[in-house]
């Protein structure tokens, strides 16, 4: 076991527990628990969004993909970033103005019926749990590689920590863990990038020309097409990337942690700058790993390339930088899973328990208790699923989450704000068709079925060649919402739409945060 890495892991655990302890004293009401009482500044929330978003898939996954497949890995960086324009231009401000604690709140602001809230909450929970299993499986593998701990113990450690943050510190602890992580990740990535760039004499021209001979791909390394061979699949992936973010529940709930739409806007802008700078640096991580670690050693450590960034740190800065970068990767996972637990738990406690089961009659104290138990329940469920999913492909789970988010959530969010005729039947059909069509398309895809044993979950021919369902399921989600609306005999409540229009665009009528 690497003692230095172990000490840095402990330091990070200690720091996050101190944050949680401080936050626990400020977490008493439901508003504290779900949204840190809307008290974050634009800058703080911008950092927290970045910390919530830049997952291990971004840091370890993209670095590995760029190192192994060159240009194609960079598509993820571009899609993950441009997605924030959809969030900024279309979703963030109306969401802040209409919602209170969860995404379902926003939809229920227009269609205040149990089934609408229930289905919206179901989508939130499904997406968050798929995303979380991916993070936990990744965390297990990473800690196993870095510290030599068993997969089971690794998942348990991460699982217990995320539960502690959320149960005791709620959104305040989650936000600050994310802020600290964003800072650490930017520092770690920046140090590596500068060292890599210095090895190319700070010349982009030199870097690109040397990359032509640095890998087994030769000239082809710099050209697209090494990883994605099927053009339609490629477009489908890009579609899910750019539209998925605006439907990811753990990102959407971050906008309730600020006081108004103007601050929500500022936080997206800050987040976009931070995330953009980070994704630019993924080129240095990927190129550096390809050039200085080498194809064979990257593949040897992990076939998918997930160890490229830590290995690069080892080559460039020895044991200390390796330990530091590993600890940063660990912090990255912790911050993301905490956000996911919170988003799934708030859907359980706020939507299912308070609104549907108790019909809004639960006291403040009962709601906070329910939210804490929901967090524990969500954590235990995800830990168990992650233990069974050890051999599942992480990319498959993340693709699922993005595709479901883009197909099931985004159409409903957009139509709720913009379409006057939209009605309850349309909202419910749209969400259900988006959810189940994306799940079904993945279930029959090459992610799940492969002719050769071990390449996917089951052995057999996949029914479709698309690995990402977005290009079919996203239009289906929109279509189902339209058809459901048109087929329903119930006319849309136009007065209600006027109210939504005014509230979404001006923020009138949102509750002032309660002062304690």
């Amino acid at each position: 076991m690497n003692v230095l890495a172990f000490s840095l892991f402990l330091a990070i655990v200690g720091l996050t527990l101190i944050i949680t302890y401080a936050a626990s004293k400020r977490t008493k009401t439901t508003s504290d628990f779900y949204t840190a009482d809307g008290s974050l500044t634009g800058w703080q929330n911008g950092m927290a969004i970045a910390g919530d978003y830049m997952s291990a898939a971004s840091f370890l996954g993209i670095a590995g993909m760029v190192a192994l497949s060159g240009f194609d890995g960079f598509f993820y960086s571009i899609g993950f970033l441009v997605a924030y324009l959809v969030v900024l231009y279309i979703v963030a401000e109306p969401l802040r103005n209409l919602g209170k604690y969860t995404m379902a709140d926003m939809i229920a602001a227009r269609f205040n019926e149990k089934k609408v809230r229930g289905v919206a909450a179901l989508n939130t929970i499904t997406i968050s749990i798929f995303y979380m299993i991916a993070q936990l499986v990744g965390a297990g593998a990473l800690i196993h590689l870095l510290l030599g701990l068993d997969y089971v113990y690794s998942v348990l450690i991460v699982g217990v920590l995320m539960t502690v943050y959320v149960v005791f510190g709620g959104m305040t602890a989650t936000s600050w863990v994310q802020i600290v992580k964003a800072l650490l990740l930017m520092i770690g990535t920046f140090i590596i990038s500068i060292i890599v760039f210095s090895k190319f004499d700070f010349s982009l021209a030199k870097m690109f020309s040397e990359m032509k001979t640095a890998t087994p791909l030769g000239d082809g390394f710099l050209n697209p097409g090494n990883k994605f061979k099927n053009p339609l699949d490629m477009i489908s992936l890009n579609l899910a990337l750019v539209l998925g973010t605006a439907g990811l529940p753990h990102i959407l709930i971050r906008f309730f942690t600020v006081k108004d739409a103007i601050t929500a806007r500022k936080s997206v802008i800050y987040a976009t700058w931070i995330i953009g700078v980070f994704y630019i640096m993924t080129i240095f991580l990927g190129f550096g790993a390809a050039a200085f670690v080498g194809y064979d050693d990257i593949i040897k450590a992990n076939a998918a390339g997930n160890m490229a960034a830590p290995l690069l740190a080892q080559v460039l800065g020895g044991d200390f930088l390796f330990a530091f970068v590993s600890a940063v990767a660990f912090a990255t996972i912790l911050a993301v899973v905490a956000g996911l637990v919170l988003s799934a738990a708030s859907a359980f406690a706020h939507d299912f328990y308070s609104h549907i089961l108790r019909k809004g009659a639960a006291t403040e104290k009962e709601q906070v208790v329910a939210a804490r138990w929901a967090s524990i329940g969500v954590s235990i469920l995800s830990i168990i699923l992650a233990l069974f999913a050890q051999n599942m492909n992480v990319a498959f789970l993340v693709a699922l989450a993005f595709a479901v988010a883009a197909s099931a959530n985004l159409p409903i969010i957009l139509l709720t704000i913009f379409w006057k005729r939209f009605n309850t039947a349309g909202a419910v059909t749209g969400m259900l068709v988006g959810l189940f069509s994306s799940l079904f398309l993945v279930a029959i895809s090459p992610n799940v079925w492969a002719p050769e044993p071990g390449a996917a979950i089951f052995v057999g021919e996949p029914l479709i060649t698309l690995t990402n369902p977005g290009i079919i399921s996203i239009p289906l989600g929109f279509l189902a919402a339209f058809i459901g609306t048109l087929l329903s005999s119930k006319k849309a409540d136009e007065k209600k739409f006027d109210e939504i229009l005014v509230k979404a665009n001006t923020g009138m009528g949102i509750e002032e945060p309660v002062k304690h």
Partner: protein
Amino acid sequence: MAMNENSLKKVNNASSSPDYTEIVQSASFQKLLKQKRNFILPLSLFFLAFYFTLPILTAYTTVLNKPAFASMTWAWVFAFAQFVMTWTLCILYTKRASKFDELVDTIKKEAAN
């Protein structure tokens, strides 16, 4: 006494919900909607088109594989342009949104009277 009356008035205003249809039909609200639509719709279409042009060109053609500067091909230049595009659109949005905010203030004041 006057202060008490004032605060009472405020409470009443806050608790009774305004006539949203009237606000929607007001000139300033229609102006806000129009300004937002004229900005957000074309720019959203633009960034989606700009974004999808890259994967479509790389998936179906090899035109971007020609070197642009030294060994850097046009695909990379286009990829970096996506970052520049994103940041530029963020700045443009911030500037324009402050105009929307002014209109929102007007609408809120009108609704309060």
